[in-house]
């Protein structure tokens, strides 16, 4: 198994892409910490499902935007499991992906931008600062940051969200640059519209169909597509790859 005996933290994994990654990691031998913000039930359900399939997981509530709470969570993980090998920074601030009712540039407030930067960037910064001493001590650690193909191809210009996710790409590169010498590999995944997830519920069929029409594989991305890439990037299969952003969107964007 690719992640045998590895301890993996997946932030925001109560549902959607995060949950798919947590499930795939557990199937491949990792002990998974399912971090969630509010939806305790869905996190607990995921943990039960993983356990029922013979995997190992535990749910931990924590707002990754809160640095004190993050430190507590990491301390608990270390106390119980001794180390962390893989971190998936998947959590982000709630966002309404609604093509029909999105805010136009003149309506987006600075607060909106800050919310997205807090969710996307501050969450990563808090988690990374808390886990770094442990990642540095491992021979090989993997960090995966979730961004979006909208950064490259803003088919729907969600200004605030895309600004936050663009910053993730910059941070992904600077972290890879500094941490490579420690054997810490840092990569990003930029999924296209991932369906079905709760984030995509307002992206109606007309928009979905128009995206599908432009997508070489003629389909949208599924959470499982993303979790496969996340597994690759967390395992030795991706050795010596760092600072990269892999776009998983059926070829809609070709970088």
């Amino acid at each position, binding site marked *: 198994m690719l992640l045998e005996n590895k301890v993996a933290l997946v932030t925001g994994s109560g549902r959607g892409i995060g949950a798919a990654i947590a499930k795939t990691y557990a199937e491949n031998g990792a002990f998974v910490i399912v971090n969630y913000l509010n939806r305790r039930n869905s996190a607990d359900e995921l943990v039960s499902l993983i356990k029922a399939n013979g995997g190992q997981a535990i749910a931990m509530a924590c707002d990754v935007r809160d640095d004190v709470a993050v430190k507590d969570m990491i301390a608990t993980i270390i106390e119980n499991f001794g180390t962390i090998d893989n971190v998936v920074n998947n959590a982000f601030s709630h966002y309404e992906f609604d093509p029909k009712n999105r805010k136009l540039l003149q309506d987006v407030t600075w607060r909106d931008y800050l919310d997205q930067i807090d969710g996307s960037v501050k969450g990563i910064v808090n988690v990374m600062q808390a886990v770094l001493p442990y990642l540095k001590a491992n021979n090989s650690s993997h960090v995966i940051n979730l961004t979006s193909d909208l950064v490259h191809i803003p088919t729907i210009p969600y200004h605030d969200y895309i600004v936050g996710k663009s910053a993730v790409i910059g941070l992904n590169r600077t972290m890879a640059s500094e941490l490579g*010498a420690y054997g810490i590999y840092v990569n990003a995944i930029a999924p296209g519209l991932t369906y079905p997830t709760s984030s995509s519920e307002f992206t109606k069929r007309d928009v979905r169909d128009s995206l599908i029409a432009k997508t070489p594989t003629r389909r949208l991305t599924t959470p499982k597509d993303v979790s496969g890439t996340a597994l690759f990037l967390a395992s030795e299969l991706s050795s010596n790859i760092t600072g990269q952003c892999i776009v998983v969107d059926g070829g809609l964007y070709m970088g």
Partner: protein
Amino acid sequence: MTATSEITINIFHLPSQVNIAELEEKVICKGNQRIHMSYPDVTTKLLDETAENLRINQKSYLSQLTVEEIISIIDKAAQKWTNSEYELRILAEKTLPIITGYDALQISLELRQFIRLFRKKDLRRFIQSEVGMFGNILDDFQPNHSGGFSKFYGPDLIFQIFSGNVPGIQIWNLLMAAFVKSATLGKLSFAEAIMPSLFVKSLAEVDAKFADAIAILPWQSGTELENKAIELADTVIVCGGQSAVKSIKEKSGPTKKVLSYGYKIGLALIGQEAISTDRYTTLIKAVAEDISIYDQQNCLAPQSIFIEKGGAVTPKEFANLLASELQNYQIRYPRAQLIEAEQTSINKMRQQADIESISDSTTIAMVSQKNTDWTIIYRDKVDFMVSPLNRAINIFAVNNLNDIGQTLEPYRPYLQSAGIAVAPNRLFEMSDVLGSLGVNRISALGEMNHVVPGWHHDGGFNLLDLVHVTDIEASAERYSEQFDPDIE
């Protein structure tokens, strides 16, 4: 299936006057490669005959050469080795990785650098720094400061026992003997007899009569042959481990002159000012090189590293970074395969650290997984430890590099090289502390395995330790003037 490649190589050299009826053979196999190493059956009779001829050749030819002529011969041989097409270099590059187990690329890179120590300009610098007067004092009587004249004489015949840990290192001692115009009877180690044999062959290609004053032969240690060779020689030079050196000294008795190059310990010191955000990555690379080149078998390599707290990365982070870099080195230049005893001593070092970490959680073992490729034992205290070598290193986090003197004291007889990364204002202060503790060589990090021409091997004088001086005192010179029949 690929065909087996067979290479036959002579691992000895004798004066041309000594004839050998038949050769014995030792075969080393690795994969589909077989190396046949040929050498004569060494007997006391052969040693007698060889020594007799060496003495004749030394007297009739080597002792008549000037130092400048000797430099020129060695330079021509070394220049051959700077050519990648030179057949003996190709042979060395093919066979040494198989015989020694060191990575082929690493051997090639190191040999190229090492052989350049023997070019004319480097040798002239060496001679000048060691004896002055461009070595003329080895050729003829030269005016001295007390009004008379002096000349240096080397022994007629030196028995040398070479070590086998690092390819080519034997050439250094072999040539030191040649500079003082001494013939060499050398005992090679089977572990690495190739490089000295090939280099002497190059010398013979340049000047056969010069090479006729050199004999090198491999035989198993601990036989009566050593006693015989000691008896035949005027001076003995022994390189090797503690026990080898001790045994030769005992065999040589109190009157025979013995120079020894034995077990030595290297260390590295890193000041907090050197661990800045823009410098630390290059430091890591340098330290990893010092540890990885020839797997610390060179007595020049570090066994413990002192890292001062207060730099941009903590000593522990430095150790983490070094762990990654040693893993990178393993991918680029894999460590030699170890015999079981060597593996065991590394595992012992790891176990000891694990036990220690139960009572002291600041002791951390950072190790390659599932093998002994590399090992770092990190300790947050001032101490000093030797290493089982083969890419195993001790790291000590210290508040101030000035605090380490005391811990080095017990190792005084063994301290040799120190790699040091500190600001200029601390270099001399730290060097003085280290010098007073017996450290005799201070280099940059990353250069610990590379000596410079003119280095004082183990803190001694390479040539001066070999010679005796004959002085013509001023009175004798003036006195002789009285007996000049042409002066009235």
